[in-house]
């Protein structure tokens, strides 16, 4: 039996963010939100471990504007329950504050053996939550996990590094931060979606976590976010395959992109 915590971040869908035409700032309010991609891989991996070894899977989620519907999505995939902190104050949270709040929330959940999270978030790509949580709990962490096997004495993880795969072992409890390669997250069936409506979502107030003012004060402030402009010609070519192939070959030669 293993009890697993899965950290889920709700982010803006970065593929649907458009820059403001003049200020070049991202128009975040206009893009839909989703569970950060790699976090779904973490949830999937937790569910697979549970199916094999038993135990429970608890989703934890903190943020400034948490959407219940996305929590239900995680429960529909198979998480047993969820703990949520949604507080406007977290809008300015940096990695430090996020980790402190998550850790305090995880303490509320009670007993656990493993924390799984995505190796990086879709919007920030900072690769920091896993290592920070592990440091707070003074336990090992393994990032870039592409394969996980539970053993009697701990966990064996295949970790993708620059030169190849490092196979490492850690004792439990531990934090594993997984990437996209580890699995393909399941799509919940209608039955699972219905069952999810009965699963508990525990809403915890930020003030109930006993965090100090210092722990809630970001150490890094975002001054500005701007689109990096790349000007492309955006010429569309349409027609029969023969025409397209002919035209494209001419372009490649005429623009000197390929040489005789």
């Amino acid at each position: 039996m293993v009890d697993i915590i899965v950290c889920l971040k709700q982010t803006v869908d970065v593929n649907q963010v458009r820059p403001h035409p003049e200020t070049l700032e991202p128009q975040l309010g206009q893009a839909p939100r989703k569970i950060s991609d790699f976090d779904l891989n973490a949830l999937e991996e937790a569910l697979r471990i549970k199916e094999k070894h038993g135990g429970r899977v608890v989703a934890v989620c903190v943020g400034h504007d948490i959407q219940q519907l996305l929590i239900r999505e995680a429960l529909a995939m198979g998480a047993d329950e969820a703990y949520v902190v949604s507080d406007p104050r977290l809008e300015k949270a940096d990695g430090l504050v996020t980790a402190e709040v998550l850790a305090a929330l995880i303490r509320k959940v009670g007993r656990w053996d493993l924390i799984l999270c995505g190796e990086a978030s879709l919007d920030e790509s900072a690769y920091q939550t896993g290592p920070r949580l592990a440091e707070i709990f003074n336990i090992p962490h393994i990032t870039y996990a592409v394969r996980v096997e539970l053993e009697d004495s701990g966990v064996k993880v295949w970790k993708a590094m620059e030169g190849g795969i490092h196979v490492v072992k850690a004792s439990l409890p531990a934090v594993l931060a997984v990437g996209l390669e580890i699995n393909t997250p399941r799509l919940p069936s209608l039955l699972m979606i219905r069952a999810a409506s009965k699963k508990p979502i525990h809403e915890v107030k930020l003030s109930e976590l006993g965090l100090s003012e210092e722990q809630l004060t970001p150490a890094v402030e975002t001054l500005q976010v701007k689109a990096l402009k790349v000007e492309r010609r955006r010429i569309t070519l349409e027609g029969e395959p023969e025409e397209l192939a002919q035209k494209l070959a001419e372009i490649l030669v005429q623009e000197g992109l390929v040489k005789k």
Partner: protein
Amino acid sequence: MSTILVYSENPHAAAEMLVAARQLAPSLNASTAALHLGSMSEQDLKAYAAGGAELVYHVDGVDAEKHGPACVAEALANVARNVDAVMVLVAATRLGREVAPRTAQRLKTGYAAECVQLEASSDGLVAYRGVLGGTYQAKLLFKRKPYVVSLQTGRYQPEGSGSQPRVEKVSIEITAPQLELVEIARAESAGVDLEKAELIVSVGRGFKKREDLSMAEELAKVIGAELGCSRPIAGDLKWLPEDRHIGLSGKRVKPKLYLALGISGQVQHLVGIRDSKVVIAVNTDSNAPIMSEADYAVVGDIYKVVPLLTENLKKLLGR
């Protein structure tokens, strides 16, 4: 005087970090030093000298590969505290990106990951980094010291002062949780340097079978291009080795021509190709994101267009 403490498990990357640190040092009123863990060779010392290091702190008992990132973070945080570091600068290698946030947490401070540029302001350190899939740049201000930063490599050129840095031995008792390294399986590698390729033909999920990649290979051969791919092709499907994967978590390329075949163009992929001079995309879906990020968006079926294109080019180029 305070210190900018630099670390990388790769001394050449550390040398680059030292160059960046030395540029910031005057405005932060700091000196610079490197941290070296484990045994230190002449070559290592030369690399630090090339970065202009005057001082190297040497902790012998800790090995990054053997003991894991938590122990490296413990050593780095301990030395940072001892020397009253104003900033801890780590090269954004895979290990570096694990060590830096853990160090920041140990020092109860902020962290800016994989930065592309740093500058000192009167309010504190300002860091620039890619966000929202890499298509946007964020400007961050540190409100608390020490500043923990990882910086992309390949941006600073160590010149080499030649003079040997002073080495100071530090002994640290490691108490952080260790990992046990079982084995290292070397990756299958294509042995290519896509970052330097002038022409790239790149393949995505539009290819239905592994054998079908031969269409792209044939085209690449005719024009003398390297083969690249989007993440699923190297990751999930393993049709091509990882060093051909282009995107946020793979290679960032800057060819003269980037020819994207059957690639939809998720932002994580687009960030890897943004420095390409000309982007041509072939895709059946005219609404695929890559089509609005291309110089030429060819709406067509790769299975029909690519073989014909190869034939045409063979004629035009006389091959």
